[in-house]
């Protein structure tokens, strides 16, 4: 009886769970050593470390995910948790509703259309272009959209996270070049262009940025869900 109750995790899933946590803690330590530079992104470091380990030990992704899914599960409650900064900053959001709507629409259209256009112009396949289209939205929305229009969901997930890492790493620097120096615009831009990964970079810095990032993630998902199927219809078959 004791044995059946006390064996919820077999040895290998527990190992991959531990290694994923350790890889991320390592990434955070590296970022601290680099004086919290966004260039030393802990998500990127942890992914590179884990990919290297899986490659070296010849482990399949399915086997890895059997352990890592326990971390993956927390994405749901963490996404819901964005409601808290959203609610606490409602006054700021109400006050800039007009700008919020326009910026969101402009940003969504730009990132979906430019992604598809660049892949298309450079001779990438239709499936790649369609996997690129929804990559700005939060990973679960992006994957279901890719599935719907004929992209490759797994590739979209990778692109969504890679795009988020790019936005997290260079986002604040690029926005500074364009003199975008308020938390609201930085938060919204991070949420719209880099979804959760970029939001994770900026949210701890300011509650206001976290609130606008949350709005960006949520509403961008909504807007993109309408744009991507239209774009797929317009994209000629090669």
């Amino acid at each position, binding site marked *: 009886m004791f044995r059946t109750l006390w064996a919820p995790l077999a040895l290998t899933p527990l190992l991959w769970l531990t290694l994923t946590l350790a890889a991320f803690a390592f990434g955070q330590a590296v970022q601290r050593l680099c004086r919290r530079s966004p260039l030393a992104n802990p998500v990127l470091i942890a992914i590179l470390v884990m990919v290297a380990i899986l490659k070296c030990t010849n482990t399949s992704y399915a086997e890895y995910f059997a352990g890592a899914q326990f971390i993956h599960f927390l994405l749901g409650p963490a996404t819901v948790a964005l409601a808290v900064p959203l609610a606490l900053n409602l006054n700021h959001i109400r006050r800039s509703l007009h700008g919020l709507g326009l910026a969101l629409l402009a940003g969504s259209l730009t990132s979906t259309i430019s992604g598809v256009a660049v892949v298309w112009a450079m001779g990438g396949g239709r499936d790649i272009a369609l996997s690129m289209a929804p990559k700005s939205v939060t990973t679960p929305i992006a994957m279901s959209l890719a599935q719907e229009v004929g992209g490759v969901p797994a590739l979209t997930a990778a692109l969504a996270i890679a795009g988020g890492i790019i936005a997290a790493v260079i986002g604040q620097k690029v926005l500074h070049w364009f003199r975008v120096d308020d*938390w609201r615009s930085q938060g919204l831009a991070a949420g719209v262009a880099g979804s959760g990964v970029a939001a994770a970079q900026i949210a701890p810095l300011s509650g206001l940025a976290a609130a606008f990032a949350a709005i960006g993630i949520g509403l961008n998902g909504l807007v993109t869900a309408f744009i991507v199927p239209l774009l797929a219809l317009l994209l000629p078959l090669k």
Partner: protein
Amino acid sequence: MPFALTVLIGAQLAGEVLRRLLHLPLPGPVIGMFILAIALVTRAQSWVTPTESGPSALDKTATTLISNMGLLFVPAGVGIIAELSILQREWLPIVTGLLVSTVLGLVVTGVVMHRITRRANLGAVPSIGDSSEEGVR
């Protein structure tokens, strides 16, 4: 902590149920986020009002989850390992498209938002954390 987790996962569950019932194109957690946000600004304001000993339990749990959100993307990100062959074959359009569209999306969103809010708030720039101007709008 148990209360906060119940609220967060309960909102996710509600979002998931709503998604199935209404066939919404959004994932459950995102719908759950909107449900909880609406609850927190209407009936359940007390869940996020700070207590004498600092932020509320829900606020604390949410802050912990959000500030460690990066970790939660690692398992999905490692999924790239299964797509390495596509990446090898078409890396140039993929990498260029990714860079161009991310940077353009970031800049366009940031600049449009910044221009409009600055014009709207000229002379009355609210400071971070300021909630005393409720009636000013």
